[in-house]
Each structure stands twice: as structure tokens, then as C-alpha cells.
């Protein structure tokens, strides 16, 4: 135990004192927040720009439908000929020209509307134009068939389904987004952690091999102690780095938001538009957050985080032991990356679609994907026995994999110049 502590200490200090590590620790949040600020700033610039679009409406029906807004301004050139209108638009470098030809009936128009422009217009602009025209056409068609359009308008209702569970607690739809957010963030975080720090474990094993210090060390401590010390020390360094990122990132985020006067929160895509919520809904949202089983979420998060990280970094460590240099690791990386990717994809597609479906359930049991998939499922409420089973499988696999990895590690670290293959490694397991 004393040796393990010493090893953990050394590994931790070796990581934390590394110059690249220090630079990345402090630079990453700066870069990230800087990027957000830049994106926010640019999208603000973008949206403040007003486009001018010319209208050439031969039918005269649609002029009133195209209303100026903060992004678009429409100019009417219907009294000029089409060629003249085009010329004006081009000379003034307007955004484009909409041409609506005259037609005998509404249906003739459907494929005839044209847009002229120097560059092809944004998808949103085109959709908007199409919507305006087709709405108008639809209304005209309805009127022509003798249907009272006003009555249809007044008959339109908005439905807001209220979701309740069987014990009668109301949850808002927002709560589902929240669950997705928490689960997704946890799964994604775990994947990033495994890739970054698993690689670090691997590199440090390779370093010991290439430095030829390994034999000096294993004559003092057991290889498995060294391996565990490495994994634990590196993960502690990782936690330190993550903590710095979160704190520094948070501070910078606030400062940047304050300084630029940019509402960074609102600049993020897929944001929840808080200002559109009314007070009861905000209260509901707060209640939803509080309603999530925070404590058990944290506990499960820790279990799966540690379980998943240990599983993968043991594999990373044995890969490091099997090869002589980092360039040789490629052939062994696939079995590590594929389950990680699979976990994330299943999480973002299957789990969000149906958290308790067959695919989600199965992959939350398979140990290599379960940490990610289960973490994403848990906020949606998973029966306790499923979680227990999944954790049990994960722990058993962990023990087995750490044991196997330690065997590969023990043999591999003392093998120099031998090209490791899967076959070779299989042989090592039997030594």
C-alpha cells in the first residue's frame, strides 16, 4: 500500500508538472470561451445585417404578404419589366429578386416562382419565401372554394400536453430536455475523460518502456501496483485538470459575457429560450431540476464514471505495455474507440428516442458501453434491478479485464523490440 501511494504521488506530480499539461489546463478554457465569444459576436453581426430583396409580382397578390422585418426589407419593382428589375437589383447589389409570374389559376403558380441572386440564398430565406407564397395561395384557394377563412383561423387551437406520472406529479416537457441534457453531458464527459486520460496512461506506460526504467521499478514493486498507481495517479491529474477547466471556464465565461455585453447563454445553439417562459413554467422548471434524484444521480455517475474509466484505462495500459512506440498503437485502438463511439451514438439516438427500448436496455448492460448508455438513461428513471445488474456486470468485467490487462502488462513491459500482435498477446496471457 505504501508503494502504491508513492507511485500514485509520482504519477500525479509527473502529469501535473508536465509543461504541455499546464499549458493545456490554462489555455483550453481560454480558447473555448474565446471561441464561444467569437461565434456569439459573429452571429450578432450576421443577424444585424439587413438584406434587401426585390419583388416583381405580376399577379399583384403577394405584395402585402411580404412584410419587412429586422433582417429583410422588400422593395417593389412590379411596375418595371423583369429585365429592368433584375438590372436594378444587380446594380445595387441587393440580396436577390423574387419573380412571381402572372397565372390563370393558383395551381399554375406552384412551380413558376423564381429567385434571382448573385449568390444562392440561405435555406431559411428560401423556406420563408415558399411559406409566404404557399400560405397566400392556400388562403386564396380556400376562399375560392367558398370557405370562410376567418372561421378556420378562429378554430385553430394550440395544444400543450401536460405530462404526469402515475403518482400525479406534473412535469413539464422541459424536464425531458433537462434529463437529456444531464444524461448526455454525463455520457459525453465520460467519453472525453476516457479518451484523454486513457491515452495519457498509455503514453506514460510507453514512456517507461522506452526509458528502460521499467525493470528497475518492477524489481521494487509488483507490476499490477505500478499499473494501478498509474491509472489512479493519472485520473487524479485528470480530475484536477477538469476542475480547473470548470472553474476557470466559468469565471472567463462570466467575464466575457460581461465585457462583450454578449449574452453568451443565448448564443448557444439548441438553447432553451428562457425569456419565452412565463413565471409558472420557470417555477416548474426549478421544481423539475429539484425533482431529479440529484443524490442518486451523483452516486451513479461516480460509480459508472470510475467503473468505465478503470475498465478502459486498464486496456489502454496493456496496449501501452504491448507496444514499443506510440506509432504501433494504431492496430489496438479500434477495439477501444468503437465501443466508446457506439455508446455515444446509441446514447444520442436510441436513448433519447426511447430511453427504455430494447436497444437502450441491452447496451446499458454490455460493460464496454454500459457506463455511457446507462448514464444517459438514468435521468429518465431506470428500475433499480436493471441498474444493479448493469453495475454487477460492469464490476465483474472490470475485475476480469484488470486481471487480464495486468497479465499482458506484466509480460509486455519486459518485452523489447518484439512486434506485438493479437496472437502474441494471447500467448502472453498463458505465461
Amino acid at each position, binding site marked *: 500500500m*505504501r*508503494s502504491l501511494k*508513492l*507511485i500514485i504521488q*509520482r504519477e500525479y506530480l*509527473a502529469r501535473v508538472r*508536465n509543461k504541455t499539461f499546464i499549458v493545456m489546463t490554462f489555455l483550453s478554457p481560454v480558447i473555448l470561451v474565446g471561441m464561444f465569444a467569437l461565434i456569439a459576436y459573429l452571429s450578432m453581426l450576421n443577424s444585424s445585417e439587413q438584406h434587401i430583396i426585390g419583388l416583381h409580382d405580376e399577379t399583384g397578390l403577394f405584395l402585402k404578404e411580404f412584410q419587412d422585418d429586422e433582417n429583410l426589407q422588400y422593395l417593389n419593382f412590379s411596375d418595371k419589366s423583369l429585365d429592368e428589375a433584375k438590372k436594378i437589383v444587380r446594380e445595387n447589389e441587393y440580396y436577390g429578386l423574387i419573380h412571381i409570374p402572372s397565372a390563370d389559376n393558383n395551381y399554375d403558380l406552384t412551380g413558376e416562382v423564381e429567385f434571382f441572386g448573385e449568390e444562392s440564398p440561405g435555406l431559411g430565406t428560401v423556406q420563408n419565401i415558399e411559406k409566404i407564397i404557399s400560405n397566400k395561395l392556400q388562403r386564396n384557394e380556400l376562399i375560392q372554394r367558398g370557405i370562410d377563412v376567418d372561421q378556420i383561423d378562429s378554430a385553430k387551437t394550440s395544444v400543450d400536453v401536460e405530462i404526469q406520472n402515475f403518482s400525479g406529479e406534473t412535469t413539464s416537457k422541459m424536464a425531458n430536455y433537462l434529463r437529456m441534457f444531464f444524461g448526455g453531458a454525463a455520457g459525453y464527459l465520460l467519453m472525453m475523460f476516457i479518451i484523454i486520460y486513457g491515452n495519457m496512461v498509455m503514453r506514460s506506460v510507453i*514512456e*517507461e518502456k522506452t*526509458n*528502460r*526504467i*521499467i*525493470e*528497475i*521499478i*518492477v*524489481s*521494487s*514493486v*509488483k507490476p499490477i501496483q505500478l499499473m494501478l498507481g498509474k491509472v489512479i495517479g493519472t485520473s487524479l491529474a485528470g480530475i484536477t485538470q477538469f476542475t480547473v477547466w470548470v472553474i476557470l471556464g466559468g469565471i472567463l465565461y462570466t467575464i466575457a459575457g460581461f465585457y462583450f455585453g454578449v449574452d453568451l447563454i443565448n448564443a448557444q445553439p439548441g438553447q432553451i429560450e428562457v425569456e419565452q417562459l412565463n413565471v409558472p413554467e420557470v417555477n416548474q422548471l426549478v421544481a423539475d431540476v429539484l425533482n431529479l434524484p440529484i443524490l442518486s444521480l451523483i452516486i451513479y455517475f461516480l460509480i459508472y464514471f470510475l467503473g468505465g474509466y478503470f475498465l478502459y484505462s486498464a486496456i489502454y495500459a496493456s496496449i501501452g505495455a504491448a507496444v514499443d512506440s506510440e506509432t504501433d498503437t494504431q492496430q489496438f485502438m479500434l477495439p477501444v474507440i468503437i465501443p466508446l463511439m457506439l455508446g455515444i451514438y446509441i446514447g444520442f439516438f436510441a436513448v433519447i428516442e426511447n430511453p427504455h427500448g430494447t436497444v437502450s436496455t441491452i447496451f446499458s448492460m454490455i460493460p464496454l458501453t454500459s457506463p455511457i448508455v446507462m448514464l444517459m438513461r438514468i435521468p429518465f428513471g431506470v428500475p433499480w434491478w436493471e441498474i444493479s445488474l448493469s453495475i454487477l456486470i460492469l464490476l465483474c468485467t472490470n475485475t476480469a479485464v484488470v486481471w487480464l490487462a495486468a497479465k499482458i502488462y506484466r509480460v509486455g513491459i*519486459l518485452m*523489447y523490440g518484439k512486434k506485438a500482435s493479437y496472437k502474441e498477446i494471447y*500467448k502472453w496471457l*498463458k*505465461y
Partner: protein
Amino acid sequence: MENLLVAENIYKRFGSYTALNNVSITIPKGSVFGLLGPNGAGKTTFIRIINQITMPDEGKVYLDGKPLHPEDIRHIGYLPEERGLYKSMKVGEQALYLARLKGLSKAEAKERLQYWFEKLEITGWWDKKIQELSKGMAQKVQFVITVLHNPKLLIFDEPFSGFDPVNANIIKREILELKEKGATILFSTHRMESVEELCDYMALINKSNKLLDGKVSEIKKEYKSNTFEVGLESENEAALLAELQEKFKVGKAQFKSINDDLKVSIQLQPHENPNDLIQYLLSKARINHFVEVIPSVNDIFIKTVTHNA
């Protein structure tokens, strides 16, 4: 004499390959023991078994009369053939870490490090990183780390490879001094000549098998062939040579001499006495040189290996 290390009937296989085949070795306390053999003979595997880096498939190892125990690594100092240090770690910090892994307390380790650093005149290196040191300098540090915890048994695998002659001499001196202080030393090498001057005992390993072992002087006695090199000064060397060839088994001899005389080697029958030879030669010529041919370890090695092949 008491034995410090006894290895009995060690077998080690890697898959279908046998690395050690029934190897038994006994190392007396306070001796310098040479483990000899060509590359790939199984020396390093044997040493790793003593260091408990690998476990034998069969056989037992005793240290000081007791079966080898994981705690015993504290009594062993090992300088592996493949040796290195953390490149980006400072010398002092690194030495402290490795000493503490061997069970020394921080204060104790620091004190002994200071002693050794002063002894080898490397005090100024404490805050240097290994990557700033030359290979020979790094090896000095490794040597200190190996001996720092005052082990009973010191194991050096090819210790002199990579050392320049000056440093090799310093290390040789230190090793002999450690022996004086009571340490037992195990050398593993394929360079036979380095054994001649240092080792009291030796064992020969070839292709996983132990071929012979014992006291170096006794092995040499056993392998000597009652052969003598002589330098003779005579007026008629050709006639003398013809006469000698008739009476004895005569071979060519190569030794340095200031005299321009007849140089031959004469092999006597096992029962014959060299005194009789001298008497005979005295009557024929002037003897400038008369030396018994003692086989070198290298000769013994080649002889044994070819004999057993």
C-alpha cells in the same frame, strides 16, 4: 561457508520455449559470483526470477536459508541490463522515489544519497534532469540507486556495458568495496574476461541449461591440461624442436618475449611432473620462459559449449 542464495531445480517455460531447464545455483555469502553465458542463454530470466519479476514454473529459491518472500526485494539491489531513468525527472527526486519504493524512509534515503553522491562526486547533479546528463553520468546515478538500500545481494546484469574505462574502474572499485563490507554480488555477463579479475565463483549457462559451476580457481584447475609454454635459447633450434616433437606433444606458442628464441607449448601426460620436464630442458638449452597454461574462462566456455553440443 554459508550460502546466501540457493536456487534449486528452476524451470521456466514461455509457451513452448524453455528458458531455464533444471537450473540449480548456489551463491556463497560474501562472494562475487559470475553468471556466464552467451546472449539468450537464460541469464536474464534467471535473474528476473531471483528478483521476483517473473515466477519460476518449478523449483525453489532460498535467500539466507528461507524461501524467497516478496518482502525480500528490500535485501536485493538490481541493476538490469535494460536500464534507464525517467528522463524529465530531477536526479535527486528520482533517486529519492526509487529508494523509497525499496522501503527506505524519506530522511534515511536523503542521508544515504548525500553520502553516495559525495563519494562519487556527483553532488552537483541533484537538481539536474536525467536528459541533461550523459549516458555514463546516468549510469552512475543508477549504480547509486542500486546500492542505496544496503542490500545483502547485489545483482548486476552486464554492468560495464556503456561505461567508459574511467567510470568502469570507479564502479569496479565500489563493487569490491561493497564486497569487503559483506555484500554478496551476482554478475551476469557474456563478456568472459570481466569475470576473470572479479569473480570467486561462476556458473555457465548455455541454451537454458547449466553446464558447470563452482569456484573459479577449481574450475580452472579442472580444465587445465598440464600444458606449459616454454621459451628456449639454443644454437640449433631446428634440431631441438625435432627432438622435442619426438618426445612430447608439442604445439605452437604465442607469448611476448624480448628474446628471439624457440617458443613452443608442451603438453605433458597427466601423471608426468613438470619438474622432470625442466630438468630435461636444462640439459638441452637455456630456459627463458616457463609458464603453466591456465585456461581462460573464455577457453573453458568454448570447450564446454562445443563439448556439450
